[in-house]
Every structure is written in C-alpha cells, then in structure tokens.
C-alpha cells in the first residue's frame, strides 16, 4: 500500500500531515455551511424575500430563545421531554434485547413470532395516539406508550440479526470447551451482537425523540412539543421557531452522542476501525 520509495520517517510525516489537513478541512467547510445558513436565515426575511411575520430573522428567534431560557416553564418542558425520551428508550432497549435474544436463539419461537412481528412493525406509531390519549389523557404515560412502541422495533430487529450472526464455529468451540450458558452468552453471543445492538439503539434514539415531541405536540403531554403547540395557537412565531431550534439541537446532540458512543464501544470492530483509519 505505502509508496515503496519513501523512507519510514517521511511516510509517517506525510501521513501525519495528511491527517491534519483532512481533519481541518471538513470542519472549515462545515462551519462555512452553517454560517451561510445563519446569514440566509437572518437576511432573507429582512430583504423581503419571505414575509417576516411568518419567518422572523434569526436574531429575533435567538432573542425569543433568550427570553425562553429565563422562564422556568421552558426548563421544566425540556426536562419532561428528556425524561420521557430516556425512560421510553430504556424500556424499549431492555424489552428489545430480552425479546430479541429469546426470538433469535429459539427457532420455534422465531418461526411462531415472525409473522406477528412483521405485521406489527410497519404500523405507524402515531396510529396509537388516540388510544394513548384516551387511556392516559395528557400525561407523560400517553407519550411514553408511543415512544416505547416506536423505538422497540429497531432494537428488536437489530438484536435478532445480531444473535443470528453469531459465528457457528465459535458457538461449537464454546460447547466443546464446556462453557456454561452464561459464559457463552457473555463471551460469544454478546460481542457479535453488540455492533448490531448499538446500531439499533442509535436508530431507536432518534425515533424516540421524534415520537416524544410528536406526542407532546398532538396529545398535549408536558414537554417542548406542547410549548410549540401553545406558541402556535397564540401566534408567537419567533418563540415557535426558537423552540423548533431547540428540538433540532436536541436531535443533533442525540445523533452525535450515539455516534460517539458507537465509536467508543466498538473501537475494536472493523466498521469503526476502517472509518478512523
């Protein structure tokens, strides 16, 4: 792979140099992109290209955000959203892993449950909005039901794929060496399932956030979504944009956070190693 003519030191220096250049360049271009977006958001409304009543300039939105940040209602809503999101996601992960391991390791259960899973999975989770609203009213549980239902499927499917992907030879080897069930799970099944599980958690985390805020928006359970619905009905346009901006930032944090987690936990795995290179 490496050029044969260069001595080891120059190779290292070249690689070092290349790495620094590639590390900085995307960052610069990315920041330029975000800055352009910010400039557009600021000057499109004031130039009259779009109606400022519908689309306030960025400074006004940020001003509204500053005002929001001084109210305790905002922090309570943010807390409620985060709480609902994390509780729902945790339930989905625990249930998904448990059910997934059972389904994938027992062929009979697998064959019996496949059709049920295939029928339930594509049901749009928002279809449950009316049931949740009737059963729980405008409480956190109503939204929690949606979040768990929606984020269970990515975890469950990934765990099933992961357990199925376990190396047969490794399993047989474990059996030959008389590993117990616990040790087999810990040392053979778990490592091969991990990459799949983490992808499932990453997908589920994003879906859970969407459903959490959707539930708050439509059902009216406490959280950022409810504040957005309130801002909309009272025609507080800049405040609405400020809240949407907060949800976007939350989304980015969730995406980046789960990616980092993936890198941390799977540092040994080929998919991550090839990305870092």
């Amino acid at each position: 792979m490496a050029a044969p003519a260069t001595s080891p030191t120059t190779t290292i220096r070249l690689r070092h140099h290349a790495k620094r250049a590639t590390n900085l360049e995307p960052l610069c271009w990315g920041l330029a992109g975000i800055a352009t977006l910010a400039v557009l958001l600021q000057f499109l409304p004031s130039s009259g290209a779009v109606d400022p009543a519908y689309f306030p300039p960025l400074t006004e939105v940020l001003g509204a955000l500053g005002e929001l940040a001084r109210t305790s209602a905002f922090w309570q809503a943010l807390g409620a959203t985060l709480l609902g999101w994390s509780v729902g996601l945790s339930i989905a992960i625990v249930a998904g892993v448990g059910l997934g391991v059972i389904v994938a390791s027992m062929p009979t259960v697998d064959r019996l449950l496949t059709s049920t899973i295939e029928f339930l999975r594509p049901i749009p989770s928002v279809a449950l909005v009316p049931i949740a609203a009737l059963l729980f009213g405008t409480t956190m549980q109503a939204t929690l039901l949606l979040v768990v239902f929606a984020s269970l499927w990515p975890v469950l499917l990934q765990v099933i794929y992961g357990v199925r992907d376990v190396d047969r030879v490794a399993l047989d080897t474990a059996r030959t060496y008389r590993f117990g069930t616990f040790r087999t799970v810990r040392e053979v099944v778990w490592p091969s399932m991990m990459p799949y599980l983490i992808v499932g958690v990453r997908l589920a985390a994003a879906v859970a956030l969407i459903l959490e805020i959707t539930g708050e928006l439509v059902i009216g359970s406490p959280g950022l979504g409810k504040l957005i619905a309130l801002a909309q009905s009272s025609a507080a346009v800049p405040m609405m944009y400020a809240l949407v901006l907060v949800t976007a930032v939350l989304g980015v944090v969730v995406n980046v956070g789960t990616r980092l987690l993936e890198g941390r936990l799977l540092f040994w795995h080929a998919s991550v190693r090839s990305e870092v290179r």
Partner: protein
Amino acid sequence: MKALRWTAVTFAVPVVLLCLWQLYAEISQNFYFPSPLSIAGVIPQTWLEGRLTDDVLPSLTRLVIGYVCALVIGIALGIFVGTFRRLRLFAEPVFELFRAIPPPVLVPIIMLFTGFGTGMQITVIAFGSVWPILINSIEGVRGIDLTQVDTAKSYRIGGLRRLLTVTIPSAGPKVFVGARQALSIAIIMMVISEMFASSNGIGFNIIQFQRLFQIKEMWSGIILLGIVGVVANIVFKLVERRMLRWYVGMQTLER
C-alpha cells in the same frame, strides 16, 4: 402438507392473540377495548360508505405525492451534492441539522406559509421525509468504488453515461436505505398533518372518533392505518427487490 404447516405456523400466534383479545373484551366489557369482532363489524359502514373516496383516497394521494416529491428532490440533490467533495463538506452539516428537527414540529411552521389544506400536507410530508433520502444519497455517491471511477475515466465514460451506469447503480443500495426510513416518516407525517390541522383524511377521522368517544370506529381507523403501513412496506420491498436484483445477487455470491 408443507403449505398447511406454513399457514399454521404463520397464523398461530396472531389467531391466539385475537382470540385472547376477544375473550378479554367479552369478559371485562372494557369500554376502551372493544372486541375485534365488533370492530370488524363497524368497518363497512365506517369506511366503505363515502369515507373511502372522501378521506382514505385523499390521504393516500397526499402520501404518494409527498413521498415521490421527497424521492425526486432527495436523490437528485443528493447525487449532485455528493459528486463535488467541497460542496458535500459545505452542505452536509446543514442537512444534518435539518434532519435532526423532529419532522412533526414542521407542521405548525409550514401551516404559517401554506395555510390549511392539501398543499400544506404535501409540503409537510415531502419536507419531513426528504432528509434521510438526501443524506443517504450523498453517502451512496461518496462510497463509490474508486476503481470503478478510474475505470470509467480511463474509458472516457463521462457525463450522463457515467451518471447512469456508474454513479446511480452504486449509490442505489444506500438510496434505498434512506427511502425506507423516509417511507415511515412520510406515513407519520401524513397522519400528524391530518390530526393537527385538516378537514378530511384518515388521521382527521380517527381524532374525530376519539373526541366523540366512538371507540369502535376509532379502533377501525387505527387498524386501517396499520393496513396502510403494512401494504406500503410490502410494495416497498417488491420495488426494492426488483430494482436491486443485481445487488442482492452479488451479496449472495459473496457470502
């Protein structure tokens, strides 16, 4: 014999679950959980008389138009942006930011611009579901095998032909990953836009039934949405299998 066993295995658990639900409903007489048979009983008069053309059809039309718009815009823009490295680096964080917005919060915003109606719903569906397609198309173009690009260059295959024979096929599998994520978002957006602000559609009706405590009708609407989801998924799989036949074949060869 084999077919019989397949049928038995496939339908055993669903049938048992339905029976349990029926039994539970008969015994408990729970107002919120009517029995499956009584729900099935209200389906004809609820959905087949008038609502099929006044609500179901408009819903599905908006879904299809919005989703197709998202596909066209997402793939075209994704391939364009993905082809130029600096443009990709410039645009990707912005797209990621837009993707991170939970799509349902767009409903109140887009309502400001387009008002109340079909235009709003199509815009909401398209705007919500375009991001996964866009981002995955960019990824797909970026992941093209460099040997293929070099081969195409040395044979002087350029422009439109390279786009059609090299770029699009190798981005294909990734595009489908995005399109699948977008499909479920599109259905969610269809329902949400109708629940939030509409005067017809499946979602609008379900919310009406819930407010009027017409529980059986509400359940029948939920089941209808489930059917929409399952059918959309099956159609998607069929299209995917057809269009990615070469890829599936290649994967099985490599295994």
